[in-house]
């Protein structure tokens, strides 16, 4: 079936030249030109709001631009060299990767468990699923402040409940104590984003043909064998996409850090985005911050590209 109703003219003939080349006006209003015109506003918008700021940021990264000085001299790669020697940045990257690996793994495992439980027919499933995804639709900073109250030493319900269980008052300073602060952060992160993983995996599991399970059962496969050798490979593509989305998102973690720990105690939970925010929007070291943002962008893009390439090859 031909969707676009255009006259089919043999190429090379005189008629074809007359039919295709002729009308300039038709090129604009009736042919390919109109398409360009129609997409032009979007392209201009994208260029204005995305490409231009990135190029401008790139230019700033070569300037010694701080708010305290009115001159902004060009210093070449000076900012990049300094950033690479900035131990606080590497520490912040380390903290970010740690949160990312632990939180996303936990979200994957919990999300998969939930999806497995809810993939079949279950009474009340239609009520349960919307309830489960509620945390995901909440604003992260609200989640942060909510958990801040939950973890509160004096008035927080978590210490209160632990006190009931243990039979004596519990005064854990969850968000300051180095032994508990990451746990507190990751619990909040996992609480909010496990439902996303669950939804993605539930979609993957629901798409598996039930006949495959019947066949596996007929072949005498155990539940574990079915899960390991059949379910997991089948949902692998969707799992990898969910992992990439969540990893990139956790890499940018900011709101929870802002609300719960402000990067502290000291710089113990400072993540890369929080450090960039501090440098850029509190200390206004704009050239330096731009250079750091670019280095991080390169690192993330490289990691994502390598991951995707390996996945595609497989």
């Amino acid at each position, binding site marked *: 079936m031909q969707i676009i109703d255009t006259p089919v003219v043999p190429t090379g003939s005189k008629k074809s030249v007359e039919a295709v080349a002729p009308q300039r006006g038709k090129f604009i209003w009736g042919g390919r030109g109109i398409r360009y015109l129609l997409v032009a506003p979007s392209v201009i918008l994208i260029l204005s709001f995305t490409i231009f700021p990135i190029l401008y940021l790139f230019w700033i990264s070569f300037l010694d631009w701080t708010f*305290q000085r009115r001159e902004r001299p060009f210093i070449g790669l000076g900012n990049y060299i300094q950033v690479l020697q900035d131990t606080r940045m590497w520490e912040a990257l380390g903290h970010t990767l740690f949160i990312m690996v632990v939180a996303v793994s936990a979200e994957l495992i919990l999300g998969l468990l939930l999806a497995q439980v809810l993939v079949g027919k279950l009474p009340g499933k239609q009520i349960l699923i919307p309830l489960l995804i509620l945390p995901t639709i909440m604003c992260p900073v609200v989640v942060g402040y909510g958990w801040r109250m939950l973890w509160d*030493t004096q008035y927080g319900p978590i210490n209160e409940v632990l006190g009931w269980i243990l039979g004596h008052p519990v005064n854990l*300073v969850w968000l*300051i104590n*180095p032994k508990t602060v990451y746990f507190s952060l990751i619990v909040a992160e996992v609480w909010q984003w496990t439902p996303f993983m669950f939804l993605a995996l539930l979609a993957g599991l629901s798409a598996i043909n039930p006949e495959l399970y019947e066949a596996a059962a007929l072949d005498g496969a155990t539940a574990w064998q079915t899960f390991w050798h059949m379910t997991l490979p089948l949902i692998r593509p969707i799992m990898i996409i969910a992992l990439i989305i969540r990893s990139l998102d956790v890499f940018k973690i900011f709101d929870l850090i802002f609300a719960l720990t402000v990067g*502290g*105690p*000291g710089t113990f939970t400072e993540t890369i985005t929080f450090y960039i925010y501090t440098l850029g929007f509190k*200390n206004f070291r704009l050239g330096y911050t731009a250079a750091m943002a670019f280095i991080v962008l390169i690192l993330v893009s490289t990691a994502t590209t390598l991951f995707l390439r390996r996945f595609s090859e497989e």
Partner: protein
Amino acid sequence: MNWKIHSVFVISILALLSFGLQSYGQEKSAADIAVEAAKKYKGITLRVIWEAGLQAQDPIVFSGPLWEKLTGIKVQTIETPFPELFSKIVTAHLAGSGDFDVINYVPAWQADLVEAGALEPLDDFMNKYMPPGALDDIHPTYQQWLVWKGKHYGIFDDGDTFVMYYRKDLFGDKANQEAYKAKYGQDLRPPQTWQEWDQICAFFKERLAASGGHGCAIQRAAGQTYPWVEEELRVYGAKFFDPETMKATINSEAAIKALTDMVNNNKNMPPGIEKWSFIEVFSAWMDGKVAMIISWPPPGRWSQGYRDRAEQLKWMPETKVIGKVGYALPPGGHPELAAGFNLGVSSDSPNKEAAYLFIQWLTSKEISLQRVMLPYALRDPYRLSHYESKEYRSQWDNAGEYLDVLKLGAEKGLLDLAIPGAREYEEALDRAAVAAYAGTPPKEALDKAAAEWDAITQRLGVDKQREAYKEWASRPNAYPR
């Protein structure tokens, strides 16, 4: 003869008129002059950036509407939470947006804001409109904030000083006095050293435990713990920099001792004190749960039953300490003059003169007195006439005692470090303190902060910073005298 008498009469009348006019001119206050001069700008709107919340109620409810009534100039208040105030001022300036006409800023930021070109020098306006001697009434300590590198950039407007509030009833209780004497061999009195503070905290922690109370409280949450560190470091004899090399000396023996004592103090404060900010300390105090706190001036007023004086204060917990509050300088006797506010004119403002006149009017003797007495506002006394005001001294039973302590605090107090990069230095010190509260050895935390300070100094230029530091350190209230 008649001619002579007539001439003498005319000359006398002229002399009297001239004297009268002169006197009239002299009697015109800074507020009157500002109002008269500002009338020519009738119809414009001044945009003022102000700390959000109770602070902003002053221009929104009181001074803004009054200024509009007097001059026809509208005032639009842009409320901004304190942690974002500096960023918003700088961002607007970098963007050249002219978003604000009047800038409400912490004096310690003045050096940075001047270097950035965000503040307009006020000298020409002051020469034109400020009556001679009109600023002499500002407490001499706070006058140190008006000038940077020989030019006026702001007029001081908020006399923040730390005050120790203690429970007179608990300290005066005979059983407490005897128990304290028996335990420590000393009289129970408001603490005068940090060691004594800690001892009394431990004592009351034990005494009040049965009623769910604690010994004492000071806010320790990240972000605003640095003024306490700056104060204690200097009370213990530490200095911020070596004035010759500009190497940071915040990791000296004295500084380490000060921070170590602060960490140890936390043990006698309520559990979780490391996350307590102003509001938690204030709530515990109002609830009668602590025997002593150190905080800014407003809790001293509010704990005397200010809640019912204004709609804006209805959210407050009801005070259980009314009539039981004693005021004193914090241990060491040199309170931090933490933050405070200056009012300046934005260099990007299209209405600079009108903005200046508004500031002159706001900070004038008579208007500022009304403002520091507003029950809901957070502006604290800073003029000598505020401390002596009979009206203020009659606001509650021992309001005079309160004002005397605020005045003494201003006299003995220590200025925040105010050189270019002040905020970065403060943040590094704040992080070090919070890390130490969390268990990092104080020496390690301060060594790290000192390294950060050195990096900031190197980046901003050692010579430039040395010059700024010497100027700051030469002020009478930079270090304890």
